């Protein structure tokens, strides 16, 4: 690659400066603050704080509420990712078969992605609110005891559905692209080779889009972990009885509502470690995918 030569030796640094400044201000500074805070303990009035080392981490990891929240997060994230992936894949394969109005159908499916998380949460809340939701009404009419405000499992189902709904568009786009990249002759060869359409899907199509599926699995898990605060806040507020309190939600709740800054910061640091781990997996994977083709 040819090397760019700048007329002034300070110019390149000047050009880089905004990017570096943004990274410093918006990532390294809060991150270091979180790290610093996580080693401090504040008195109940927030007047003094003292250094406690790893005590906050020990407290967080030993807290049954925190471990409960980990379980909730795992259930929520896996369910959301799997649901969003499965539905998007189903819709993408269906879109392949649409003959007329393909573009229109695809455009419609992409819209939900433009809806803000909190708004998405509200939409689902309105539909399924036990007091006024249309679907809640229908469910109860059908003899089902629907009350996500009291029933933790139902609340979980509701946030999972709302969170997955928003992610389907994104997944759909990737799946459509992946499906289109499979040469048609491959499917035709399999048809001649006597594979039914179900069999073709599982033995040819699915393995060939596996790289995309894996990539999306990571992206969706990260999304469910970190980007669903708005939805949970709007739909359940973490309740009932912490049944939908994910790790991110708990950071917010402990830090800003319960004002346990040290504990909240320790949780943030743990979360940060999880993001870094997930991102590392993703990057390694994306890199491998580049070599794959």
């Amino acid at each position: 690659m040819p090397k760019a030569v700048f007329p002034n030796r300070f110019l390149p640094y000047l050009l880089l400066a905004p990017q570096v400044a943004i990274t410093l201000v918006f990532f390294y500074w809060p991150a270091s603050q979180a790290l610093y805070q996580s080693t401090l303990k504040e008195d109940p009035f927030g007047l003094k704080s003292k250094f406690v080392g790893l005590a906050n981490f020990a407290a967080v990891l030993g807290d049954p509420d925190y471990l409960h929240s980990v379980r909730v997060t795992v259930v929520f994230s896996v369910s959301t990712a799997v649901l969003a992936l499965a539905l998007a894949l189903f819709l993408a394969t269906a879109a392949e078969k649409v003959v007329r109005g393909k573009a229109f159908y695809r455009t419609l499916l992409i819209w939900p992605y433009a809806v803000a998380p909190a708004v998405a949460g509200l939409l689902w809340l309105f539909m399924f609110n036990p007091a006024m939701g249309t679907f809640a009404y229908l469910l109860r009419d059908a003899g089902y005891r629907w009350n996500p405000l009291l029933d933790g499992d139902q609340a979980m189902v509701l946030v999972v559905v709302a969170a997955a709904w928003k992610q389907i568009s994104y997944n759909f786009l990737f799946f459509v692209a992946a499906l289109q990249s499979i040469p048609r002759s491959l499917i035709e060869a399999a048809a001649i080779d006597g594979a039914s359409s179900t069999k073709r899907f599982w033995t040819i199509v699915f393995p060939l889009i596996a790289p995309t599926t894996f990539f999306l699995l990571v992206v969706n898990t990260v999304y469910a972990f970190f980007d669903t605060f708005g939805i949970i806040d709007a739909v359940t507020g973490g309740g009932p009885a912490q049944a939908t309190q994910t790790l991110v939600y708990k950071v917010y709740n402990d830090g800003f509502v319960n004002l346990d800054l040290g504990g909240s910061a320790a949780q943030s640091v743990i979360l940060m470690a999880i993001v870094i781990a997930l991102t590392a997996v993703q990057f390694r994977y994306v890199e491998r995918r580049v070599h794959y083709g």
Partner: protein
Amino acid sequence: MAKIELNEVRKVYPGNVEAVKGVSLSIEDGAFVVLVGPSGCGKSTLLRMVAGLESITSGTVAIGERVVNALEPAERDIAMVFQNYALYPHMSVRRNLEYGLRNRKMAADEIARRVDEAAKMLEIAALLDRRPGQLSGGQRQRVAMGRALVREPAAFLFDEPLSNLDAKLRVQMRAEIRRLQRRLKTTSLYVTHDQLEAMTLADKLVVLNGGRIEQAGSPMEVYERPASLFVATFIGSPAMNLLPLGAGGLAGLTLPAGAASAAGAGETLGIRPEHMRLVEDGAPQPQDMVFDLTVSGVEVVGAESFIYGTLPEGGPEVAVRVPGYSHVEPGTRLVAAADTANLHRFDQKTGHRL
């Protein structure tokens, strides 16, 4: 093994594109039939209708004694070799070969026997554990053939299977396909736009143009008695020389007395380059037609050369085959002759042979 019978087969694609306009064709059991024609003439469409990959708008396709119009590709007992090979990239070569047999719930020992046999026949035994991505183009081509072979189908269908190979490999694979087909005696329908490939492979050559059959027959028949101007120019390289006659004949062309009265205006005469000779190599005979040419170029092929020359007054260009290395300079004036016994005559309006 089976014969294939096409009866008035038509294909209209959405958007009212009529790709195949009523094709009737009978393929004998064990025959190697090659469909040849220019790009877009409907070759692939026709083949895909036989395979069941494209619906048939009207007419019938029968394989063996069965009309297969309504059958799925898998039920037609055919195997197809695709232009891009269409190997399953995530499966080993062995799995690729086995796939069609496993789907048909064949016994494991029979599958193993067939795969080994095909692998031996195609010399790919050493490649069985590799993925298609780890093979060269020629090896992939062999695997694609192998996948068709192991099925032991009633018919093989090929859609330009050699067009992704380099020239040398193409000639080699061409010979190999021919040899295999002779040995297995499986009815084969082969699509290509390469007339040389078509000539060398076919028992029966079918020239397609604009969705219709122009001519069907043995390669020699088609070459020696082209049924139309289209076939005359499509088959043979360089193409047949065409001489459209006007009211006063054609400037620079002298026909022998007898032929001159027979061939009149509104006719196009055709003569192949190999039937032409330079007059310096032998004086014109009474039955010869004589050309007055100005050399426009020379193409040296090796063992022979083609001299291109134009007739005067903006007349057509004709090619003359001469043995060996020709040193003629462009602009030289030459006299060429050809025996009228080798003449082809076509109607200018309809393009049909007279």
